[in-house]
């Protein structure tokens, strides 16, 4: 991915221009005055016009709290904001917007039933005008049809619409929270081009992220938050390094310790030897009109990881639900060891941790009984649930006060580890994991990946993810879904695998598919496109 950054276009000042927005000693505490969590502890930060600033930090480091104070959603307990040197008190996001500070949240704030132009009018005032909206989009080079309803827009288009909303309000400081998490690789470079242009026009852009390599191309300077404290502030690019950044050093700053079992060895493709086929998917079609996915064929053997990747909305969510047994297919079959899949045969980690995989208001002991069959019979085996929950907590090092902790009180990473441990405890022949590391910090990601690798030693694993890097790191084969069909199957070992997955995800033609050595999995879904030569 190329951010199109040219050092000359960067408005990095010779004589330092004053920052457009500064934080001095921002402090925010949640909970009681003595106890509670110190989310931000005396944070200083300077934002400059013309620069793209990357704010790095793990989940829970205090990035969101800091940005919420900059964008008016929270008020600091102590410290000050300075806008062009003048003290600034923000009482609401609307007040921040009036001061020229706008934020694109990770979860978009768009009215899905309205068109893009109408959403713009809601944000900026005035009557909806598709023409004016189209002109605005044109002026900033943001491809978008403002007459279409938001519900019909892709995630990338929605994000562009959110950015347009800020521009329509004449924002001079744009904050984007984890903007790449919803995008395909091709869209990410488009986003970076946009951000570069906006910065070059004299705006200050802040990228909040925990994915370090992604921002290497576009960022002009980097700050690192850990546990509410600013550990490195406004670090410029160092021209001596190949990527411009000491990625390893920044990673250590973020995490504060070495990652356990940092992944290098991706899973080898199992030999053609006597590997037992566990999952057999034949002509599977999803519900809906048009079907969410169609004509999917593949097989997964014990000891193998098959990744199914796609940009959100291309059918992999429905496919995961069918494989996980919570939805029925319209046609076709998915059998596990020759039998119809059920809870005993499939361990399923769905994407939604709070509300689907767990009930937030119930204890871990109760949540453990949700999908396991450990206590049959008329009565709830509370004791068995507690014991099994304690075992799950110990198995993957979940940080929780015990089996009686409520699921909603666990952090995303700890809850995900608990869910994974629960599903692994079933020792089912098939494990289906969906978006297992979305929103997790670096440490939790490596732990979850290690657990999936261990599971793959005994079971067949289907990994459904929107992150091609994750798929390539874990899987022996990567099947790419585009508009509900298998657009191609990529071997992570082949040269240029990452680029090829990216092209397939974006729906671009696949040159390798025509080549003689191309793995099976023809667009159009020829029956038997299994991917096992």
């Amino acid at each position, binding site marked *: 991915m190329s951010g199109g950054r040219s050092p000359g276009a960067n408005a990095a000042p010779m004589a330092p221009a004053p920052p457009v927005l500064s934080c001095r000693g921002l402090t925010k505490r949640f909970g009681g005055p003595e106890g509670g969590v110190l989310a931000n502890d005396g944070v200083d930060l300077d934002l400059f016009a013309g620069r793209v600033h990357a704010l790095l930090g793990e989940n829970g480091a205090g990035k969101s709290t800091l940005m*919420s104070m900059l964008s008016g959603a929270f008020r600091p307990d102590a410290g000050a904001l300075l806008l062009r040197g003048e003290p600034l*008190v923000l009482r*609401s996001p609307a007040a921040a917007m009036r001061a020229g500070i706008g934020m694109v949240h990770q979860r978009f704030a768009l009215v899905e039933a309205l068109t893009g132009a109408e959403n713009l009018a809601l944000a900026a005032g005035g009557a909806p005008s598709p023409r004016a909206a189209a002109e605005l989009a044109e002026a900033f080079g943001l491809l978008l049809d403002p007459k279409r309803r938001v519900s019909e827009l892709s995630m990338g288009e929605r994000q562009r619409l959110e950015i347009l909303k800020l521009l329509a309000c004449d924002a001079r400081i744009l904050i984007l929270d984890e903007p790449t998490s919803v995008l395909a690789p091709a869209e990410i470079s488009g986003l970076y081009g946009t951000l570069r242009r906006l910065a070059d026009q004299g705006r200050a852009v802040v990228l909040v992220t925990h994915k370090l390599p992604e921002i290497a191309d576009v960022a002009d300077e980097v700050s690192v938050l850990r546990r509410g404290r600013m550990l490195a502030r406004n670090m410029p690019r160092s021209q001596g390094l190949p990527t411009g950044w000491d990625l390893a050093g920044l990673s250590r700053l973020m995490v504060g310790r070495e990652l356990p079992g940092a992944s290098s060895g991706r899973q080898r493709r199992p030999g053609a030897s006597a590997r037992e086929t566990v999952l057999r998917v034949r002509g599977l079609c999803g519900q809906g009109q048009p079907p969410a996915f169609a004509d999917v064929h593949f097989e997964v053997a014990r000891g193998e990881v098959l990744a199914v990747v796609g940009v959100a909305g291309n059918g992999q969510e429905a496919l995961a639900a069918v494989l996980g047994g919570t939805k029925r297919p319209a046609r076709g079959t998915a059998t596990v060891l020759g039998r119809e899949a059920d809870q005993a045969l499939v361990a399923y980690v769905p994407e939604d941790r709070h509300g689907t995989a767990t009930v937030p*208001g119930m204890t871990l002991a109760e949540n453990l*009984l949700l999908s396991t069959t450990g206590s049959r019979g*008329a009565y*709830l085996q509370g004791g068995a649930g507690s014991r099994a929950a304690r075992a799950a907590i110990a198995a993957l090092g979940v940080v929780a006060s015990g089996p009686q902790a409520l699921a909603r009180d666990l952090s995303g990473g700890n809850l995900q580890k608990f869910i994974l441990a629960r599903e692994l405890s079933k020792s089912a022949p098939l494990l289906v994991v969906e978006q297992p590391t979305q929103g997790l910090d670096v440490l939790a990601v490596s732990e979850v990946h290690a657990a999936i690798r261990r599971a793959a030693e005994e079971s067949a694993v289907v990994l459904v993810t929107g992150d091609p890097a994750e798929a390539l790191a874990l899987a022996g084969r990567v099947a790419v879904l585009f508009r509900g069909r298998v657009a191609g199957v990529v071997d992570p070992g082949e040269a240029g695998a990452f680029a090829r997955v990216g092209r397939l995800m974006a729906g671009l033609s696949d040159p390798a598919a025509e080549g003689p050595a191309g793995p099976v999995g023809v667009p159009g879904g020829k029956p038997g496109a299994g991917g096992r030569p």
Partner: protein
Amino acid sequence: MRPVRLVLEPRQASGAWRAAISLLSALALAGLLGSLVFALAGVDVGAAWRALAQGAFGSSYSLGEILVKAAPLILTGLAVALCCRLNLWNVGAEGQFVLGALAAGYVGLFLAPAGAQPWPAHFALPLALAAAALGGGAWALAPALLKARLGVSEILSTLLLNYVAVLFMEHLFYGPWRDPAGQGFPGTAELPEAVRLPLVMPWLPGARVHWGLALALALALALWFLLARTRWGFRARVLGQSPRAAAYAGFHSARITVTALCLSGALAGLAGAGELLGVQHRIQDGLASGLGFAGIVVAFLARLNLLAVPLAALFLGALLVGADQLQTGLRLPGAAALALEAALLFGALLGEFLAANRIRLVRAPAGEAGEARHAS
């Protein structure tokens, strides 16, 4: 002068503390609204509250009457609370109450009279109670199926069926079930002794407390056990808190919904049977006196805690008994009792809100003022 604003923020408090806040604000608001009603009705507010307390706790007779009122209130409160725990709104307890009474009345009028039945006489009461549970449950079956299969709102269907049930009951006691020896008064004949719920203290004249109260208390315990300790109850709680998690776990959500609504109807039906077999002894005007609707107040006053339902029912029962004194002593209309009941429900809802959020007064610094803050 610097303006003052109200700031609303989520409260971090323990469960017990929340319950206390909820109850205290419920009582405070109910007291405030009640006083307003008294003032508007033109009576001395202090005298009205004293009359109320006197009416509720002034004599051993009134204490007994509180228990008489509490028995059906416990059951209808359980019926509403059970559904609410599943995120279902059964506002049809009144209709299910009536159908339960009619089913029990049928057994009493046509199956139980001496000589008419082929079974020993002491089978009559259990049979009438079983019929009442079936009748109430059956009245909830149609809304339950509509909800589970077609997604029809159970709020509307259960509410509307209340009117059908009351009209059907009136049709029966004005028409085919009217007592031939009743000298033209609308109402059925008195039910035979065999189906009546025996009095707890038959030696005390005027003490109308019947064994339906014990039945209600036992059912509160049983229902708590069902929800907290059985697999079905676990599934129901999961479904109530997160339907997606229930689907993920492979629970039969439609079946659980139907079962819960019918069980709720059965409880309300038993309340109707208790009122008929224990207190009124004949089906007549006034049998459906809003005890089903009052179950909603009881359920929320108990904060949907099944073990707290009996306490809430006692409290509301005391209020209703006391309010009778307002009618006789202060010549307030009978609607005063309903107004107090409504004040209590509003209080309970506000209390729930205050338990989850806290409101702070903040003196705004000079400059930007009067702008509402939206905590996300």
